[in-house]
């Protein structure tokens, strides 16, 4: 049953996001072509216009990924459609899990499309070399390659955006337990949920700073000390571990809170 639910959830979301994916990729191709030709003032202006449009589409994909997931979650489970979804012979946990996985999958696809869009529009041998040389000191100290560093950064940003997405879900579940002004409460609870997760990660970093003087001293000293770049390794590892733990806790709590509902 989870597979069937996920199929319908993904269809509903991708139908909408596909428009932005297509536009982003088309604008990226046009940008690339126009910058490659670049033989007149008109084409240069046009190239910069499409360059801006590509950037706007990338932002649109990210924003709409989040917004669409939240709107679908609310409409499908707490709107009129909720009367159908909550009377399907499937466990309530499945309904939430399907939305959780839908959020994860759409975010992975969006990340890949954004990466493809950026590569099409801006990746050249020169820009790649520039990125590599910029990241080279970090890569050397962390005993990895520039590509690995980029992938690691993308992964952490991905986890951060996913935390935003599921905080929204948690907010909707809690907000719709209230009798009135449910959307307002949902926004408030979503915000609180997100802040709570950030505070736990921040607390984790402070604890790490306490046990690791290489991180702690530059952070806590009144002198302007520059931390050694090698401290990034434990910081990244801790933040990724914390994100995973907090996402798991958020999932368990949301499933628990979702068991009892009161539809309008």
């Amino acid at each position, binding site marked *: *049953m989870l597979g*069937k639910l996920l199929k*319908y959830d993904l269809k*509903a979301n991708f*139908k909408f996001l596909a428009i932005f994916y297509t536009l982003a990729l088309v604008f990226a191709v046009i940008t690339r072509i126009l910058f490659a030709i670049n033989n007149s003032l008109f084409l240069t202006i046009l190239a910069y216009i499409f360059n801006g449009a590509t950037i706007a589409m990338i932002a649109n994909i990210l924003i709409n990924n989040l917004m669409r997931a939240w709107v679908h979650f609310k409409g499908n489970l707490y709107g*009129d*459609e*909720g*009367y*159908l979804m*909550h*009377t*399907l*012979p*499937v*466990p309530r946990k499945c309904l939430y899990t399907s939305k959780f996985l839908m959020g994860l999958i759409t975010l992975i696809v969006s990340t890949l499309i954004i990466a493809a869009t950026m590569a099409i529009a801006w990746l050249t041998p020169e820009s790649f070399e520039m990125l590599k040389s910029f990241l080279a000191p970090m890569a050397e100290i962390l005993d990895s390659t520039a590509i690995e560093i980029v992938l690691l950064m993308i992964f952490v940003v991905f986890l951060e955006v996913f935390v935003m997405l599921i905080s929204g879900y948690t907010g909707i579940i809690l907000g719709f337990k209230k*009798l009135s002004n449910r959307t307002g409460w949902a926004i408030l609870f979503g915000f609180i949920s997100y802040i709570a997760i950030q505070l736990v990660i921040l607390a984790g970093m402070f604890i790490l700073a306490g046990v690791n003087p290489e991180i702690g001293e530059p952070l806590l000293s009144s002198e302007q000390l520059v931390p050694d770049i090698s401290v990034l390794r434990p910081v990244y590892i801790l933040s990724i571990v914390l994100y995973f733990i907090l996402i798991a806790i958020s999932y368990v709590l949301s499933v628990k809170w979702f068991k*009892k*509902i*009161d*539809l309008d």
Partner: protein
Amino acid sequence: MVLLECRGLNKKYGQKQALKNVNIEVTAGKIVGLLGPNGSGKTTLIKLINNLLTPTSGEVLINGKQPGVESKSMISYLPERTYFRRNMSVKKTLEFFADFYKDFDLKRAQKLLKDLDLDENQRISAMSKGMQEKVQLVLVMSRRAKLYILDEPLGGVDPATRDYILDTILTNFNEKASLIISTHLISDIERILDEVIMINKGQVVMHEEADALRAKYKTSIDAIFRKELKNAR
């Protein structure tokens, strides 16, 4: 065999008591009219049976079990609002039902849609509210469920279609199943009722067999309902 049982069921919205100590039993093979004025608690009761609300106290048992996956596979529920994904076509909606309900009879649904002149390829968003309600009724009545719960099934349809709908309900529901039908259009459904549950201000004020009621008061259920309502005021 008791198909539905509500024991000491209470529902409060904040300070407002929507249902107060509701105790009812519905046995298999009955068509039960759930009657009451607007805001009497009919829809709240139906939503509690369908696990769309959490009771403040008391319990609902369907075939002896608390609401859950098993009870949902037994109940075919028609809510008072349309619950479709509006961007889906009727055909896709049929597929959705066939995907999730093992007891969904696709051929029966297609026949009923044809009888009602409804186009399978039409998008839900392109249909009028009345047409959407008809499609929803077709979907609900095309399941071979143990308990059908219809909340105001006649509200949005024209009088000519009402008779067809009532006939559809009667011909499509098997004798071992039960049907709870909530409406204020009592005169329209009176002829098909076996039992009547009258509810007012969140309390069950009457639960009797339809024939016994008519014999007792020597009038129609519609007239009894109006009289009871007047007395309650």
